[in-house]
């Protein structure tokens, strides 16, 4: 990787980290375990379209690790990781499919992020009780995905790095 490329990636990772921190200070849907707005996904979507698949994965996974190391814990790491990996898998596949715009890809990413977390929660708690939160997780993932994707779509079109 050339230096300029690496610098861009570092910058975007820092931005994603800042957004993770910002969203951790917003007490949104706090009654649902694991629900987040998915603000960092904005940067991941941008990286996916502007830098490439490998860079998006690297950025996202490094962000998860850094969040766990700075203001998360070993425990929240697994939830974030499951959400991030499932979301990345879905987003890279859907982008390759080519039918969806960055908006649609981001929506799918948001929903899959929540789905990944609910699956880990079910496994960890050994309980189906978490399923009661599924409708809210689907809805919040979709709405957040639309907001994040709309903003991300504009960034992908306007900003040249």
């Amino acid at each position, binding site marked *: 990787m050339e230096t300029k490329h690496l610098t861009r990636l570092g910058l975007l990772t820092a931005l994603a980290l800042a957004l993770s921190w910002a969203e951790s200070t917003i007490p949104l849907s706090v009654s649902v375990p694991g629900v987040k707005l998915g603000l960092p996904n904005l940067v991941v979507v941008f990286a996916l379209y502007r830098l490439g698949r490998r860079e998006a994965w690297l950025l996202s996974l490094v962000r998860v690790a850094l969040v766990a190391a700075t203001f998360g814990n070993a425990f929240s790491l697994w939830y974030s990781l499951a959400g991030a990996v499932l979301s990345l898998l879905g987003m890279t596949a859907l982008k390759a499919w080519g*039918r969806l715009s960055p908006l649609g890809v981001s929506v799918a990413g948001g929903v899959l992020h929540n789905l990944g977390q609910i699956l880990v929660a079910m496994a960890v708690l050994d*309980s189906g009780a978490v399923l009661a939160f599924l409708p809210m997780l689907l*809805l919040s993932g979709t709405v957040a995905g639309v907001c994040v994707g709309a903003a991300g779509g504009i960034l992908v079109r306007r900003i040249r790095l």
Partner: protein
Amino acid sequence: MKQLRYDLILIALLLLLSAAAWLLLRPRGEGAVAVVTVDGAEAGRYPLSEDRTVWIESPGGYNLLTIAGGAAAVTEADCGDHTCVRTGEIRLDGQSIICLPHKVVITVEGGEADGVDLSAH
């Protein structure tokens, strides 16, 4: 703009899925007992009709379950995120309070009243 059409189809599908999941999983009426599980194993069941506080010990720490006025709530806990405390009161069949760090799940179940409820519908 063709991509946008697929975007809208995806969003519509997800909204439909949320609605379907809600219809399927929504609380079906008043609950009767609060069932406490710690790390997947049942740790106790308490009728919502009797006011009490229950100290729930788990490997991660404690949660204080308070049952009052036919509803259950976690009023105190030493977990990091306090999601369980912020969930507030639950009283309907199928509602849950979840403390992920402590692997504690408190679920309201219909209990005895369940069969009566079903036949009434």
